[in-house]
């Protein structure tokens, strides 16, 4: 019997994957464990390994397509085996994405899993944008990579006149810029000419779909309430300066950031109020055994939340080093599932963008997320805690946020 190579479930929340790249070719002999393909999941680009030895008979899925978990992507022949011409690979029912497990399981080595997530974006009666096509041709997505489609004459004239073709709307077929379009083109320096460009349509990436589904589910089903305090960061900033000077004097390549201080301050507060380190589980509340902090990292095409596990037990230097490694891996799409799956509490920091304050959407199944703004002229930072009221009541939320503030304002505690 030939072996069907299926779209694997590479993370607990993965329901489908986009086939990104083949690393082998039909006819290649492979051993179990060889990487056959790369798959873009809702979280990262991951490798698909062969589970058995064999020879690649054929690929049965196309690159770039989104395939449900369990869909055959290739057929392997066993050594010496001839695959019948009429052989049809079979689809295996996709295993359900895991639900939040019981506390006992959560305490095990694997971090707590995420809640089940429906793949499609949940919108009962979607209100969709009316597209401005701006040309007679079928709606073309904006040219990839910024390539401007223009006739040779238009290109030459634009170069001679110093015009930027990317600011010109093409009236030719498929939006091609032709010579007459340049007559109304904006001239260098003058911004008086209004240019209307066609809308572009970008297919959802698996990550975008996951973000949309998770956050829609959260905002629609989790009863959020919000608590806000301002923490005086003067002492924390001074403390950070001393700490970094200390590392520098010892030639250690550690530079603790404000965010690292907030991770540690939050982790210690959660350890102090374990009831807030929890998740809703339909008919129960899960209290996590570990303080695992998910930190939102902005990456190309979306964001991801790598986890600093047991942050309450780690030193600031360790947290800082780990966070740098995780952020780099996140930006390179190289996080392993265990590095972003689970987590008991999230932090989102937009302070570096100068945002004064904001309220974040809870990252299910967690029950709280801390939104951090920028320091004001008095070196105070707005901390906004979004809380799932099913799990955490106002008083507990207030105690948690108060503890975070206290930890930041008395930073000596952060070294313990």
């Amino acid at each position, binding site marked *: 019997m030939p072996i069907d190579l299926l779209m694997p479930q590479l993370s607990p929340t993965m329901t489908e994957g986009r086939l990104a790249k083949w690393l082998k070719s039909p006819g290649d002999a492979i051993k179990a464990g060889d990487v056959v393909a790369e798959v873009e999941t809702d979280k990262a680009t991951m490798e698909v390994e062969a589970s058995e030895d064999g020879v690649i008979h054929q690929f049965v899925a196309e690159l770039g397509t989104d395939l449900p978990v369990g869909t055959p992507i290739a057929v392997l022949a066993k050594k010496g085996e001839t695959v019948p011409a009429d052989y049809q690979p079979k689809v295996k029912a996709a295993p359900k994405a895991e639900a939040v497990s019981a506390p006992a399981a959560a305490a095990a080595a694997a971090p707590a899993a995420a809640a089940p997530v429906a793949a499609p974006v949940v919108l009962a009666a979607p209100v969709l944008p009316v597209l401005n096509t701006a040309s*007679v041709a079928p709606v073309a997505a904006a040219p990839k990579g910024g390539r401007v489609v223009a*006739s*040779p*004459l*238009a*290109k*030459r004239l634009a170069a001679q006149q110093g015009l930027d073709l990317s600011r010109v709307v093409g*009236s*030719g*077929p498929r939006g091609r810029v*032709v*010579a007459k379009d340049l007559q109304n083109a904006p001239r260098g320096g003058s911004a008086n000419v209004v240019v209307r460009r066609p809308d572009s349509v970008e297919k959802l990436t698996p990550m975008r779909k996951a973000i949309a589904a998770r956050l829609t589910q959260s905002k629609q089903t989790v009863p959020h309430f919000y608590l806000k305090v301002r923490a005086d960061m003067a002492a924390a900033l001074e403390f950070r300066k001393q700490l970094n000077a200390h590392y520098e004097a010892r030639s250690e390549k550690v530079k603790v950031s404000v965010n690292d201080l907030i991770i540690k301050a939050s982790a210690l507060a959660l350890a102090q109020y374990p009831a807030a380190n929890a998740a809703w589980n339909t008919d129960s509340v899960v209290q996590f055994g570990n303080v695992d902090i998910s930190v939102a990292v902005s990456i190309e095409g979306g964001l991801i939340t790598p986890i600093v596990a047991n942050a309450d037990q780690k030193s600031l230097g360790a947290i800082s080093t780990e966070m740098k490694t995780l952020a780099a891996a996140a930006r390179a799409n190289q996080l392993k599932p265990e590095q972003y799956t689970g987590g008991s509490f999230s932090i989102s920091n937009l302070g570096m963008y100068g945002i004064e304050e904001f309220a974040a959407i809870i990252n299910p199944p967690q029950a709280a997320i801390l939104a951090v703004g920028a320091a004001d002229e008095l070196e105070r930072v707005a901390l906004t805690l979004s809380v799932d009221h099913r799990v955490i009541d106002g008083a507990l939320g207030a105690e948690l946020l108060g503890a975070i503030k206290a930890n930041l304002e008395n930073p000596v505690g952060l070294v313990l």
Partner: protein
Amino acid sequence: MPHLTVREAIRDAMSEEMRADPRVFLIGEEVADYQGAYKCSQGMVQEFGPKRVIDTPIAELGFTGIAVGAGMAGLRPIVEYMTWNFALLATDHILNSAAKTLYMSGGKVGCPIVFRGLNGVAAHVAAQHSQDFASWYMNIPGLKVVAPANAADAKGLLKAAIRDDSPVVVLEHEVLYGHSGEVPEGDYITPIGKAHVARPGKDVSIFAYSMMTVKALAAAEELAKQGIDAEVVDLRSLRPLDVEAIKASVSKTHRAVVLEETWAAAGVGAEVIATISDHAWDEMDAPVLRLSQLPVPLPYASNLETKCVPQVEDIVREVKGLLDGQR
């Protein structure tokens, strides 16, 4: 200026050259006693006698071989084919003997010869008698190829061909034989290798040859009524092509259409498009359009024949489409 039919212009060209040069003679089927299958040699046997206006059997391979040999030996033959479709039998002499001998003899043996006859689509003579061979001969180094569209060029190009030391293929057109036009008096020559702007215009260049030039001019009149100022460039000479004229025209209009009676594949239009791409790429504001015969053996049935060959209304429609930004 005398008003002549194309067949009279051809007769005058040959007669004038035969009077001027005793080495020139005409050979072919029915050229003498019958005065030419299409009456292109009227009165010539009477003037020059049967030694210089020679009737042959229906044997293209044979009489072409005789003529090519005569050309190599120092005469200047004019070979008339009843149609270029029949010259298929003689292509070995045209391509291998006439076109290549000058090169293969290291310049010692040339063949100043004219091969002429009707070419392209006439009226209901079916697939085997309707082919446009322009691109076949354009492909051959050592040959020159001309295709006149009016009486003046029929005379001027034929006289130039007879005087040329290379073998020259003259592609005439059955429908055009009866067309008439003014022909300059005297020793009128149309230089080989020069295209002619038959109608100046600024919006689009229409490149054509032979009968298609006539259609292009009619289409340009219709387009003018609709506000489109088309330039018609009569290529006249297909090998060598007048690259400068093509370049000059598209540099003015920035859009081009090529008309051909032949099929599109490896055709005249393809060569013109490649010329534009090589020499005038930065001038173009739209892809070049070509209108060709549909890729089927030409039907005999009149209605189908008409549909297979670009007609004036097709040209008008397609040129408008090009200018409306549909391409």
